[in-house]
């Protein structure tokens, strides 16, 4: 893939917490309009990767290039301002604010007020249950509704890249299905998405391309379909024994 088309490029990223290094030279690319998944087991470093790209965890070495500019050690709020949105693991909502206020905070980077109103209509359309709960405080929502709110809040700023960290965690299969329907819809309409998931099958189904992250290193790369058919992936993550 030609380099100029990459919206986001991660080069040889090394990240750690104190003395414990988690990522050992991760490189990946994300082109505009593409949906890319990073799959791997618990503790592989998926969350660390997204938190580092978002600026919440400064890298030890390596770099992140977003829209042809090196993010370096920019603070997280500057990275958000440039159009990179993260839906963090554990949702990280503002618990004692209403659904509506959470969404307004998501839209605070919009230059125009009109845009905020339009985006509110858009995300309430994507997740109608949020409209019903609009005056409720975020802490009173169910897990699935909280995940929907976290995604909607990130969409409020019309980000150029949407990063999703484990959107399926702790949710019932039915809720997961409806959330992934929305993600697939966004992907089809041309959104650029970087999705991190433990649920490998689900992630590979919506992704154009995917990487496998194992103990801090990317070990495999391919289209979603290729990886679903890949023997090692089938064995390790999809629970299919070969033979």
């Amino acid at each position, binding site marked *: 893939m030609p380099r100029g088309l990459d919206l986001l490029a991660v080069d040889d990223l090394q990240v750690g917490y104190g003395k414990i290094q988690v990522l050992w030279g991760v490189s990946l690319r994300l082109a505009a309009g593409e949906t890319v998944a990073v799959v791997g087991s618990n503790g592989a470093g998926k969350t660390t990767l997204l938190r580092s790209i*978002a*600026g*919440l965890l400064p890298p030890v070495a390596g770099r992140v290039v977003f829209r042809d500019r090196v993010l370096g050690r920019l*603070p*997280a*709020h500057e990275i*958000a*301002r440039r159009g990179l*949105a*993260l839906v*963090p693991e554990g949702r*990280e*909502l*503002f*618990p*004692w*604010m209403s659904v509506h*206020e959470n969404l*307004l*905070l*998501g839209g*605070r*980077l919009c230059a125009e007020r009109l845009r905020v109103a339009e985006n509110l209509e858009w995300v309430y359309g994507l997740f109608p249950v949020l409209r019903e709960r609009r005056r409720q405080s975020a802490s009173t929502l169910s897990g699935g509704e909280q995940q929907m709110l976290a995604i909607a*809040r*990130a969409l409020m*700023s019309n980000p150029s890249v949407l990063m999703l960290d484990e959107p399926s965690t702790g949710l019932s299969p039915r809720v997961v299905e409806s959330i992934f329907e929305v993600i697939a819809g966004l992907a089809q309409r041309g959104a650029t998405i970087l999705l991190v998931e433990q649920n490998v099958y689900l992630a590979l189904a919506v992704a154009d391309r995917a990487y496998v992250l194992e103990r801090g290193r990317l070990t495999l790369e391919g289209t979603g379909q290729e990886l679903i058919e890949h023997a090692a992936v089938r064995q390790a993550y999809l629970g299919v024994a070969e033979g």
Partner: protein
Amino acid sequence: MGLDAASLLQVLVWGLVVGSIYVLLATGLTLIFGVMKLVNFAHGELMMWGAFLTILIAQSTGVNPYVAMIGSTAAVGLLGVAIERLGFRPLRGTAKINEIFLSIALILVLQNALARFFVPYFRENAQIRTPYATEYFSLGLVNLRYDFVILLAVAWAITFGLWFVLFHTAPGRDVRATSQNRAAALLMGIDVRRIDMLCFGIGSALAALAGSLYGVVNPFSPYAGTIPAIKAFAVIILGGLGSVPGAVLGGLLYGVVESFGTFFLGGSWRDAIAFVLLIVVLMVRPQGIFREGA
């Protein structure tokens, strides 16, 4: 005083007056705690700096002390901004104990710096003299000092103003967001360090205003801020750490309880009431009236 309606009413009025001072003090403290998760033990010293600067400005320029308070409040607000920028910000991310040491160091520095200027002028105690010191409204049963009325008006105008900004404006929403979830606030594009600086400045300014109003109704010395600050800690624990509505309700409640407690039990109990209240709250409802961050 006997147990007649007039004296009870007088006790209530006094409770509301001191309660309003505690409201300002506690609101500032809880605002700082909310966004920075930091207890500034030197809050009472900022308070006394406010009172002292008010006298200084009023005496050197001849303006009404209530006008002088605008200047002293702004000056201590800027001092707060400087303390955050140069003191607490570099410590962020290091062990919590460093912040505690810094705020204890600030007590010593601010107290002694104040004494250095204060003692030559006032010896032990000073009081802010207003032109209305001997004027009263007569409200049937009680006489209401002009100063009490002005004090209540100033304190509540500021409190409601702050309330409005926090709960009904976009910058206020950014402050509440930072208080409720700092990482998520960053992800929304909020420059949380600016919010820290702003809130430390506003919190310090509120302490200075509280100190100036305190100085109108009480004599004070450079060391007089310690006990009111401890009471403000009790108030924010009562109201819920980081909760502004909690600080407002808690401060008012505390003022009235203290006033009646002193009336019925005697003056020597006045400062013990805060600690009794603190112990009871920690045993019965450790999370306070409101939850953090509201």
